């Protein structure tokens, strides 16, 4: 067991866990922030995507010992951000979600995309969203919501 100081959504947190514990399970079980989802545990589905120092990261394969002082932003905090809020609002106006389980990760990936490319084309969207699985198949509405958010942010 080891103690780690973290910054999650701008707030200082401290956890004492096994160093191998993935960031995902620290968020979910230690900090009780369950918006970040467990889908596969092998970074194949993207449901656990968070921002680590601004980069979309699969939290299921990042041991807490490797997080260091990088700021963590999760779905619970992304609405504080202008782009994050726009993406959430576009998701709602385009009625994207079905079961919704993958959507935290989809939104985190979409926000990272729009922060690096304000006006993405289809290929940019596929490249950034390509590893986020949605079993309900909301992909066409995700594409549309990203474009809507991009337009509203312009």
């Amino acid at each position, binding site marked *: 067991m080891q103690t780690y100081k973290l910054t999650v959504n701008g707030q200082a947190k401290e956890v004492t866990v096994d160093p191998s514990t993935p960031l995902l399970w620290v968020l979910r079980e230690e900090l009780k922030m369950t918006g970040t989802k467990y889908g596969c545990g092998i970074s194949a589905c993207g449901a656990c995507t968070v921002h680590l120092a601004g980069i979309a990261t699969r939290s299921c394969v990042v041991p807490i010992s490797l997080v260091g002082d990088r700021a963590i932003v999760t779905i619970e905090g992304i609405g504080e951000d202008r782009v994050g809020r726009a993406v959430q609002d576009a998701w709602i106006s385009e009625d994207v979600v079905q079961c919704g389980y993958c959507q935290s990760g989809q939104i985190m990936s979409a926000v990272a995309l729009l922060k690096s490319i304000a006006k993405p084309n289809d290929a940019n969207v596929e490249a950034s969203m390509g590893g*986020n699985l949605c079993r309900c198949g909301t992909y066409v509405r995700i594409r549309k919501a990203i474009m809507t958010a991009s337009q509203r942010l312009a």
Partner: protein
Amino acid sequence: MSGTSVIGKESGLSRRSFLRVSATAAGGLIVSLYLDFPLVAQQKPSAKTYPPDAFVHIKPDGAIIIQVNRLEFGQGVQTALPAVLADEMDADWSRVVGELAPAADVYKDPVFGIQMVGGSGSIAHSFQQYRELGAKTRAMLVAAAAERWKVRPEQCRTEASLVHGPGGQSATYASLAEAAARMPVPETVPLKKPSEFRLIGKETRRLDSRAKCDGSVKFGLDLDLPGMKVALVAHPPVFGAWPKTVDDKQARSMPGVVDIFEIPTLAKGKAVAVVADKFWTAKQARDRLQIDWNFNGLDKPDTSQLSQDYKKLAATPGNVAVNRGDLKALDTSAASDRILAEYEFPFLAHTPMEPLNTTVRFDGDRAEVWAPSQFQTFDQMAIAEVLGLTPDRVVFHTEMAGGGFGRRAVPDSHVQREAAAIAKRLKGTPVKLVWTREDDVQGGYYRPMYVHRVEVAVGADGLPSAWRHVIVGQSIVAGTPFAAMLTKNGVDETVVEGVADTHYEIANFHVSAHQPTVNVPVLWWRSVGNTHTAFVMETVIDELAIRANSDPIAYRRKLLNSEAKNLIGVLDLMDQKSAAWRKNLVQGHAVGVACHECFGTSVACAVDVSIENQKPRIHRATVALDCGRAVNPLTVESQFQGGVSFGLSQIVPRGAITFKDGYVEQNNFDAYTPPYMADAPTAVDVHIVPSDAAPSGCGEPPVPVISPAVANALSRLTGKRYRSLPITTL
């Protein structure tokens, strides 16, 4: 129009219905509608002691809580059913909240007689029920207002949770709720004319979007209770195996591990449960278990062997599902006038995004359960059985589910049985059982593997003059409570549906099925038999159209029988809506079409496909459908856009579960890979045939058409037929 009698006529069941109305301690009106049914399940109606066994709760602050009698797992029922009720009630939609109802008799599906989601019945079965509930609630509120104002109810009108009187009076529903609760419940109430609908038939955004976009929604897996522990289970690698020896020394020595013990598991096997304080502890402890498994006497499935066995069986007739006319034409026609096609379909896992889970706390004489369940009635009974309780002693909360696609509708409730067995040992402690993705991919309950053998004689007119069809694959319903209802002449209807009931005019038609027993638990997978039967029918029809030098849409229209009006209607609409892009197809692209009817809904689909990097690239899909009245067209559109993507799970290269020497060869999304964004169509335009007919299903019908449509397009590009799924090489 009497709601009650209309329901009775529609479903053909005799039943009584009555409302129970009460004022609550906290104030407000609660309305329950009890329906008495011939029970499918053995469960006797339990004492109605669970408090929220109601459908409508008008709170003093004006909020209207509507109980949803089935699981929400993406299909949108948590929005659609409240909208139906709110429309008839004239409730203020901005104040309506949909809650997932716990397990209780009052929430049983009006047609199936158990509480469940399946068969695309969410709206089809509960539309009339929720309309009637809304209309009766409204009538009681109006009666209360009329009494207060000393006017006749007919002089009052309602809108947005307000009753307006003839003299300009108005009162909120909340202010009338207590008086309304003392009004007699009307036996029959008039329902709205379609022209009066405010929500039904209108595009209504989902009520659960915000919570699903900001991380606040709680799925079953997100549950956190004081003192809760997490359990993982080491399942046998071959179905039905049990531990010979378990070395758990290392696992037990880990801090946070609470207990390790054997429990019964699926297929009569035994597994090892690891209970710990946290998921990650339980996972690490499970990884450290050393288990020597006993496989004595177990059949070890091997898919390449099964493939050979099934193909051999397919060359002989099985139990007969259809025997119409004669097959003489098959014997007399020249080889060049015959098609012989052998198809093969793999086992498929559902892999809903939220892994399977159930939380149980056993208190000795009662238990409490939190489960994302499609089958509340069965799951509650199973847990009760394991714990030695009667079902009414098991309080069962329905948790929001991250997908399901059939996987949370398991007749033997094996996940819930495991959870109960673990909770029994840890009496007093809530334990959340989590199946990891590996458990899920390897855990059985797959869409069965199937082989089809189809022989068609082609007449001079290019139409089939005789058709012999043999299907080989496990029965889904054998050994379940559904067997009696769904087995005819030894044929599981879910194995032959989509072929046996085809709307194509085939005068000389013979359909039979072999249903071998294999040591692999199987289950319905979104659209069930139609997953494979529609693929076979729609690709054979396409092949016949090509042979006849006929346009594939025109050929289908010609071959469909006179009863298939809805299918012809959706073909026409699809034809019209896709005409422009089909005419202006980019060089190197091809069109594929398919149509199919299932769960009462007709669907036609055209796709624009090219080949990029040895993979199909689906640029566009145009889908036309007829689902009767579209209660929420926005949800219908979403279901069809998403459903076609789900359907592509069948053809993506890593879309197969295979067995070698009894072991499943895939264990996560890296090896069993559903469609990602790039595998799905870039655009899907959905067109709904306007209809006043009773609503039919929209969850499953989108799935069957897409794979054959894509395969047909690929055939046009490569000249090859695709008869073995998934499509691994083009």
